[in-house]
């Protein structure tokens, strides 16, 4: 009996492979359907009317979509730059120095956006920024950039911290031994070594900002739709083929960024 069992591969559990394959199929089938129907030539989402790019053309020429896209990109670029810069500093401050007092507090504050339900943060920012808007009279994109930069910090921080932890301090010690100033050591030794982590962090922050719906929905002033809030606003009984096309374009951008992300982070091995 025991011999018979040992003949099996011990890592195989009955039914697990079948469930796993099912899970992958279920994960991808809806996305593939969405992509497929974005190339629908017909006017209705229900009927396949041949291959066509017409809905991409419609979306491309829609002024509201153009504005929302521009706004999404502006916010995401700013959020990625700001959050990555701040996250890099924080990672340098909290990694490779040994434990110090209050380190846990720093971790908790940095990772807080990952833990608090987004709707709660959204409501909190709505209350806070609405009073600031009244007090200052300013109602531009600044609030969205600020909010996005904040919740992007943990996403930028994680890959940078991981990269730093894998880096040997010997190079920096060598540079210091050769009379490099701390700034020179950072600029010519630490930063180039850290760069893949920084790029990875910035890309994750960019995706997270680009995808955000809830906080944006609550913080934005009138006429400040981003692509996701525009899409949510367009939702009626069914999806319009135009929203399908925008979704597919966003999906393609995400896959592209992720692929680059994996190539960049793979290089360190």
């Amino acid at each position, binding site marked *: 009996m025991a011999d018979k069992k040992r003949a099996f591969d*011990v890592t195989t*559990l009955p039914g697990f492979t079948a469930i796993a394959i099912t899970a992958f199929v279920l994960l991808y089938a809806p996305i593939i359907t969405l992509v497929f129907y974005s190339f629908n030539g017909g006017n209705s989402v229900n009927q396949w009317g041949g291959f066509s790019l017409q809905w991409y053309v419609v979306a491309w020429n829609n002024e509201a979509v153009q504005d929302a896209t521009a706004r999404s990109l502006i916010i995401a670029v700013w959020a990625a730059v700001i959050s990555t810069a701040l996250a890099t500093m924080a990672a340098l401050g909290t990694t490779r120095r040994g434990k110090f007092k209050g380190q846990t507090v720093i971790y908790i504050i940095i990772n807080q956006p990952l833990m608090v339900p987004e709707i709660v943060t959204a409501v909190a920012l709505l209350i806070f920024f609405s009073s600031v808007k009244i007090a200052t009279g300013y109602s531009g994109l600044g609030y969205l950039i600020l909010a996005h930069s*904040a919740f992007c910090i943990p996403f930028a921080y994680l890959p940078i911290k991981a990269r730093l932890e894998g880096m040997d301090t010997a190079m920096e010690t060598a540079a210091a031994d050769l009379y490099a100033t701390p700034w020179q050591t950072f600029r010519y030794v630490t930063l180039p070594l850290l760069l893949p982590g920084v790029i990875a962090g910035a890309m994750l922050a960019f995706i997270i900002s680009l*995808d955000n719906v*809830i906080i944006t929905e609550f913080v934005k002033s009138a006429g400040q739709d981003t692509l996701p809030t525009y899409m949510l606003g367009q939702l009626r009984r069914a999806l319009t083929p135009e929203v399908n096309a925008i979704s597919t374009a966003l*999906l393609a951008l995400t896959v592209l960024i992720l692929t680059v992300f994996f190539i960049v982070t793979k290089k360190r091995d």
Partner: protein
Amino acid sequence: MSGRSKGLNGWLLSSPALILLLLAASGPLLIVAVYSVLEKGDYSGVRWILSGDGWFNVLFQRDIFDQTVSLADANLSIFWRSVKLSIATTLITFAFGLPTAWFIATRPPKSRALWLFLITIPFWTNLLIRTFAIMEVIRNQGILNTFLTWTGLISEPIQILYTDTAVLIGMVYVYLPLMVLPLYAAIDRFDFRLIEAGYDLYASRWQVLRGVILPIIRPGIVAGSILVFIPSLGAYVTPRVLGGGKNMMIGNFIELQFGQGQNWPLGAALSTVLLLVVLISLVVYTRVTSKDDPRG
């Protein structure tokens, strides 16, 4: 470097990030707590007068005419739906997630990266897009109903969209990667020789799973469950899109108070409740996982 200056540098370098987070993420949470004990304004906002109405209205309602107090059934059914759907989502994602994570972790190293990449793509794909995608599948003229009608299993489309089932399907779909990734991380560190040892000692497959595998990967199970449960409980987009406005969860109920409901103190109190539930889950999580860590 002395311990003190290490700490000082650590704080100095982290301070810009911390200031931004306190300004635009953590700090405003305190304002929410304050608003929950203020009086409701005439249209929106609050009046700066202390009032317990926000918290009172979480569970109770007062009749406008005779001032009698009764339980707010509508609110209770929303809480119950949120908790019920979140627990169901956690259990179902676990049922799918464990085999999936196991499958990925037992692939040869080369193809493992590819499978992992395949689970990461949905993880990073816009939640709204994934919710739209599942909506396309389950709506009356969608693929699922078309397929079932074609096979002859049903004669007319089943109404799934705008029901609790739709919200459940949607949440399982969007949060599954959040369950798979921590489970994978736990299984990846698992020493498969332990299974062999189990079989050598005449354990059945079920006994190996229950007695060896599950206890060892428990931190991964707890992490995955928390990562799915918390966003499920605070879900907003999925119930809004798939529940069609009627099948509200706490997240939508909170939004309602700041929108049409015009009851900011109630919305703030509800947000605080949600925040407290999350905090408690996180404390439980750290307790459970720190106990599991053999290194102490």
